[in-house]
């Protein structure tokens, strides 16, 4: 399984490097130069990047698997469907942990104000949980309905995640008068330890569903 993870990891590493190496300095250069660089805007934009990194990596990886008939090849080898699925799910979990870990450390380093970076980290962790569930559902969908059908849906979902903060911002701020700070405060006021435990349990449950689905899928 470790060997499979190594084989699958290339795209994930590439996307993580892209996220932490390029996105961080390029998109946040101006914010890094302010008096306290950890602004709400910054935290608010990081969530979509998490989805970009993880869902994007899964999307591209599955596209390559589809193109090269990877599953058909793997199923001729002494590999259980569970090995394949667990390797993929662990990679996603690792990617989310690396992403969140990197930014939480970065928040602590760049911000002098704990009342800023603590909720920021919580906000990111909760987004990480949502990302895990979405990715697990994506895998189940791909194994059940095939990449071609689910792939189109992923593009739409990804576009929605990336673009939705703009209309949500406008709607919340202009119409309802709710600020981003309030949204973040409401989100992080949840007990994110429990939320995380519930989400990870759900993620593992969906992993079992994905294994069963891949086992039943036609070669």
């Amino acid at each position, binding site marked *: 399984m470790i*060997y499979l993870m190594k*084989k699958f990891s290339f795209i994930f590493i590439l996307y993580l490097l892209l996220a932490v190496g390029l996105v961080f300095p390029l998109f946040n250069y101006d914010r890094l130069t302010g008096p306290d660089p950890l602004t709400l805007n910054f935290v608010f934009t990081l969530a979509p990047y998490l989805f970009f990194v993880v869902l994007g990596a899964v999307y591209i990886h599955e596209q390559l698997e589809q*193109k*090269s*008939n*990877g599953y*058909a*090849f793997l*199923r*001729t*080898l*002494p*590999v*259980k469907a569970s090995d394949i699925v667990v390797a993929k799910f662990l990679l996603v979990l690792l990617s989310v942990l690396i992403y969140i870990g990197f930014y939480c450390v970065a928040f602590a380093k760049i911000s002098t104000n704990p009342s800023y970076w603590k909720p920021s980290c919580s906000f990111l962790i909760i987004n990480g949980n949502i990302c895990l569930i979405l990715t697990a559902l994506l895998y189940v969908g791909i194994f059940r309905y095939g990449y071609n059908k689910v792939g189109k849906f992923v593009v739409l979902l990804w576009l929605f995640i990336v673009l939705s903060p703009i209309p949500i911002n406008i709607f919340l701020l202009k119409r309802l008068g709710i600020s981003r700070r309030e949204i973040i405060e409401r989100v992080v006021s949840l007990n994110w330890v429990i939320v995380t435990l519930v989400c990870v349990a759900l993620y593992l449950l969906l992993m079992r569903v994905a294994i069963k689905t891949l*086992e*039943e899928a*036609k*070669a």
Partner: protein
Amino acid sequence: MNHIVEIDNLRKVYKGFTLDNISLNIPKDSILGLIGPNGAGKTTTIKILMDMIQPQSGSVRIFGMDHRKNIKHVRNRVGYVGEEQHFYGDKTVAWTGKFVSEFFDNWDTNMFQKLLTDFTISRTKKTKELSKGTKVKLSLAIALSHNPELMILDEPTAGLDPVIRREVLELLRTFPEDGNKSVIISSHITDDITRIADYVAFLIEGKIALSEPKDELLSKWKRIHYKDGALEDRISNTLTSQKTHMFGNSGITMDYPALKEVIAEGVAREEIKVENVDLDDVLIALVKGE
């Protein structure tokens, strides 16, 4: 355990096609040829054996084990060459060999390198650049390099040139000689099966129409040529694939030993001639069901 593979009552239903009541036992040290026209269910049966498709009912035991519960162990001991060859197209042959070697317990790198040389497969070529024949050879090299006890091959010779086809068949023919090894090969090219198989099973429209040791089958099935009146009606009516031509009539009997005494006189008078049939004739007779 005398059988390396035991298939019991397999059933798989697709829209417009049903694989039904498939039961077969494959002895050790033998080669089974699975013969049938296109769409008869050969690939489905083989994919069920490799746990690539799940049947609705029935069971498969390979090496005495439930193949689904022990699929990792089973695939470690089975060399599989599918109808289509799937590799990571952007990767080279050398990479592919290294990649698959990680999964097999008994991988023999020297054997793989030798087979690549014997089959003249370039190690540096990307697998997507290989011809169909070379892909089959690469599949065979992989299948043989982990010392399998059972080879399962689905139409391996289709699309191969005659020289390579002969080499592949020779390789398979000698495979069980190592002891305790068996081969299951499916093909609609009956000539291939005739060359190498010990047992044959005819799969017609999703059902096993006939399953017997090849030599026994060919000793029982004969074509009888006879002049008008040379054969009693009760005998001629039992013949299949009947034809009438300017020299007389002919048909195929499925039980020549029972007929041999009865027609001996006619044969002596040269009014009846007995001719060997090949597996093609048997297949056609079974398909047409005349």
